[in-house]
């Protein structure tokens, strides 16, 4: 029952907040929503001791009296891991919304949707059968769709519809494969499927797995199914972007883990394909991220890229790989959530998310700057932050696996990490430091209020703690129990294990030494002067730095990238646009051919019908004797027919 309440509490609270918003003040509703999110998180934590003793599993209702189709709840280590993450991020996003969304209209609906969203994500991960998983998955899709289009602009609506069509068609494929799975095994129950295991012994099973992965992959944002992400995230309000990026796409990851590592006993070639997709996702994501001018769009591409690491880890399929992937799930949730909140804070103060128009915010918003810096370093995999720790484990897994292909993957993944750092240099530079020239938007007011900065600080702290104490805290407390529950070895010390605490100590030592030198030396009175080249003072534009637009412009001209960017700008790489274009062309062709003849037929039918009706109405002349004649004629016919 406790397990069920992490779904029921937010869902009920959603309706109550709708009522509260109508009946009492906005404040009451807002605090109520945050309290509900907090309670959900607390209840999720309460579940931990129970699940430590073994998975919680119970049936709620047997659909049509068939035990294979029972609606059930299943909370094991993996589910609990995910729902802790969801509830925690949900709470932070709700808290952040208090101030961030304060000025918006129609907030009743916003909080309603947000709580439904949190509840449905929890529902999806604790669902004990594929049917109810699918149900919550769809609720999640619909509520997030409505949140994406929340501000109602044309851009948001376009992005929302793209998102909805893509994920809904993915869901359809998934539904198909759920049906096939039920037909093959006679059960929908996830634990039963896991204990049975499904061998890859026919092409049909391969197809089912493929459909499943496509459906889930669209949600998770795996290249080439990622194209909704960069449109939808910028359109959504920042707390929702952070929720979608931080946890919603992880629900897709959750099911990929279940399907790929638990339900199907996948073959080696599947593992390699998934690894390859992971690497592709890393590279494509980050390459496109580098040239974005829109802060949220940039972050969206990074989400894709980071999902690539997780997919890579899952694809490796060893204890280290899965462990690294799970660890990265947590880390990504934190640092990407944090990044969205930071950018949200910037948008909140400036109303602008175009990098070209931002700059020099470090002095105005120090907390935002520092937390954003921490997050950037984390996501780029700089030690001792948490991103490094999880990426390191994934690299380790690749090395452990060995072989040429895996080495190539390793090189690509590391390259992706380097590009990430490069991309975030640009972000930090253009937003918080000098930035480029041109018209700058001036922030209204200084640092954001505590309600917005608290979630940011908490997350930044977590990024550091999870990095420095990687082995003591997250791996031991979160990842290892999940791995055990999934029948993997717990993580122990492994080859090339690095000690993050030692590294952090050394780094701090180094920084301290630098500081001492800085203070001791004469550097305090550094000389500032005009930049000059060859004795000539440069003109204004170059002097004031490089704009975001031109930051990595040279990459656009390097040959393989140039090709990619060109295609991307034309929308050719977007699976969605290509498909929609194809559908449009086909339907235009069909209609032009068929429409005319159908039109003619239709018009003819209408005309015939109208004629008939007119004549019939004329017959009903209102003259009584003629009516009686009809009756008598009818009678004569009846008598004739019956007496024959």
């Amino acid at each position: 029952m406790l397990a069920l309440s992490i779904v029921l509490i937010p869902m009920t609270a959603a309706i109550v907040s709708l009522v509260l918003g109508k009946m009492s003040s906005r404040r009451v509703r807002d605090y109520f929503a945050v309290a509900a999110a907090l309670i959900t998180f607390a209840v999720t934590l309460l579940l931990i001791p129970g699940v430590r003793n073994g998975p919680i599993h119970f049936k709620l209702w047997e659909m049509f009296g068939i035990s294979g189709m029972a609606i059930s709840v299943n909370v094991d280590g993996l589910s609990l891991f995910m729902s802790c993450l969801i509830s925690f991020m949900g709470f932070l996003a709700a808290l952040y919304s208090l101030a961030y969304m304060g000025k918006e209209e129609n907030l009743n609906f916003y909080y309603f949707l947000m709580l439904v969203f949190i509840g449905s994500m929890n529902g999806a991960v604790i669902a004990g059968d594929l049917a109810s998983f699918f149900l919550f998955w769809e609720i999640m899709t619909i509520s997030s769709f409505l949140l994406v289009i929340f501000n109602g602009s044309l851009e948001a609506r376009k992005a929302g519809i793209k998102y909805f069509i893509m994920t809904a068609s993915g869901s359809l494929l998934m539904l198909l494969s759920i049906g096939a799975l039920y037909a093959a095994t006679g059960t929908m129950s996830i634990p039963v499927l896991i204990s049975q295991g499904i061998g890859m012994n026919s092409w049909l099973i391969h197809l089912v797995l493929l459909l499943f992965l496509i459906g889930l992959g669209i949600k998770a944002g795996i290249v080439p199914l990622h194209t909704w992400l960069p449109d939808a995230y910028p359109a959504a309000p920042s707390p929702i972007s952070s929720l979608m990026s931080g946890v919603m796409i992880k629900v897709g990851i959750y099911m990929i883990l279940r399907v790929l590592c638990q339900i199907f006993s996948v073959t080696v070639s599947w593992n390699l394909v998934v690894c390859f997709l992971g690497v592709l996702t890393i590279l494509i994501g980050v390459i496109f991220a580098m040239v974005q001018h829109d802060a949220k769009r940039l972050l969206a591409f990074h989400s894709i890229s980071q999902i690539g690491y997780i997919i890579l880890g899952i694809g490796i399929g060893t204890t280290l790989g899965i462990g690294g992937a799970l660890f990265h799930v947590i880390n990504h949730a934190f640092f990407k959530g944090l990044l969205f909140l930071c950018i949200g804070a910037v948008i909140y103060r400036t109303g602008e998310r175009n990098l070209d128009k931002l700059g020099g915010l470090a002095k105005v918003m120090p907390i935002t700057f520092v937390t954003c810096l921490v997050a950037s370093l984390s996501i780029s995999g700089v030690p001792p932050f948490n991103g490094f720790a999880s990426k390191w484990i994934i690299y380790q897994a690749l090395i452990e696996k060995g072989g040429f292909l895996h080495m190539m993957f390793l090189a690509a993944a590391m390259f992706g990490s380097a590009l990430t750092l490069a991309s975030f240099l640009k972000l930090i530079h253009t937003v918080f430091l000098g930035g480029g020239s041109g018209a700058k938007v001036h922030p209204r007011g200084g640092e954001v209020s505590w309600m917005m900065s608290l979630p940011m600080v908490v997350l930044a702290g977590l990024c550091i703690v999870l990095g420095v104490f990687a082995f003591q805290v997250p791996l031991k407390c979160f990842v290892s129990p999940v791995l055990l529950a999934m029948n993997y070895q717990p993580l122990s010390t492994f080859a090339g294990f690095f000690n993050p605490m030692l590294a952090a100590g050394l780094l701090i030592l180094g920084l301290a030494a630098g500081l001492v030198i800085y203070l001791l030396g004469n550097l305090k009175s550094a000389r500032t002067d005009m930049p000059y080249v060859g004795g000539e003072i440069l003109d204004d534009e170059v002097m004031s730095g490089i704009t975001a637009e031109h930051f990595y412009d040279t990459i656009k001209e390097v040959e393989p990238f140039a090709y990619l960017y060109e295609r991307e700008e034309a929308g050719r790489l977007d699976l969605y646009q290509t498909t929609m274009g194809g559908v449009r062309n086909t339907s235009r062709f069909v209609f032009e051919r068929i429409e005319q003849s159908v039109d003619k037929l239709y018009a003819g039918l209408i005309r015939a019908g109208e004629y008939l009706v007119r004549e019939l109405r004329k017959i009903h002349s209102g003259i009584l004797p003629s009516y009686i004649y009809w009756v008598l004629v009818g009678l004569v016919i009846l008598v004739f027919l019956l007496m024959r």
Partner: protein
Amino acid sequence: MNVLLPLFIGAPLGCGFVIYLAFRNRDDKADWIANVCMMYLAAASLWSIKSLSAYGVLTYRMGGYAAPVGINLVLDGFSLLLLIIINVAGFLAAIYSVNYMERFTAKAKYYVMFLLMVAGMNGVVLTGDLFNLYVFLEIASISSYVLVGFGCEREQFEASFKYMVLGIVASAFILVGISLMYAATGVLSMVHLSDIAAQGNVSGCFMLAGAFFLMGFGLKAALVPFHAWLPDAHPSAPAPISAMLSGVLIKAIGIYCILRIFFNMFAMTPMVPFIFMMLGTASMVVGALLATGQWDYKRLLAYSSISQMGYVMLGAGVGARVIASGGPAHVATLAVLGALFHLINHAGFKSLLFLTSGAVEFSTGTRDLRKMEGVSQRMPVTAAAATAGSLAISGVPPFSGFWSKLFIVVACLQAGYNFLAFIAIGVSIVTLAYFLKVQKYAFFGGRKEGFEKIKEVPGLMCFPMIVLAVMCLAMGLLAVSPLREAILEPAVKVLTKQM
């Protein structure tokens, strides 16, 4: 329990009598008496479901004489179905009348005729005797002639007179038919007649009587080509009476009698079902086509009643045909089930639609679709109810009309009448088309000038509409097990006895 049976006839008769004698000029008292009486009847008819399933067929001997000599009241599954339709719809119409009839002067007299009509219909469905059926039929008919002309305008009198003349011709032939049956068999009790039918000797006298019955009751049921009175009479009556005429009367004294007589008192020959199917198809098509050309909301609804009765006859005809040719039992059962299901559904949504037409007329004073655009903004309850009714009658899932039409179409296909199934679906599409027209013109669309003063109708008029709108959705449940076994299946069993 048996004692309750005569009360179905006695209570409305008695109450009508009391109203006329004591409260002829006291409208408020008449309201109370009539509504309490109808509430009792509705409750009693629903209560009968339970007693029927507990005791089986109930028989009440009037004056204590047994069947061939005395007159019996018999409550079996089929009667029960009609009893529920009559009394529940009657109750809702009576509530609606409280406010609606205020603008007519003689409300108390209206209730007298209303109760008389209910008594007549209850008598028709309960009686176990053919001549008695004729008497109750005439009671119901005469009161309906009066109610059609109740408005005392030119058109009402014209409609009433035409309806009366055609109705009397039909009644005359029915009486001749009854005389012929009596001449051929020497009994009038339905039980005995069905025993004779079971022996299967069909004389010429019998078949001539059959032709007269088909024509007579067919006219009361408004089957094409005997339908000409209906589009005049139903719109002319006050709205609650239109609802009763279209929703209940044509079923109780038309369809019910046809099915009762031909399924139970005639040995089934292939010709009778063939005629059923032809009459049904003709009604379906002609009614739907004529409805598309109407601009008067109530006249459109009246034509659509003809069309919907066609569905019922088609279903019954397919069922009878399968019985007559010794086909598979489940097909016959499905067809008859579909017909009866549609019968009860039609009572629900057509009463509802006529009540909404009354509400619109009550508020705007017009029945012309072109003059009442955009009423929905002013009358949300009415508009919502009309939408529910329209969707149900057009057979849009999950509303009730969809399921019954589905049953009929599936039965047609299973019995091999693919063409008829095709027509039934086509007519359903036409139905949707003309109800879209109603929705577009009457309820949605731009608002006309001078509509600012329009108000939603009073609560007592909203209540029956809301109840019926909910029923439009809920009656789909009649197809599901416990309700189907309690209400529809006993009725189907009565009709498919010959198998």
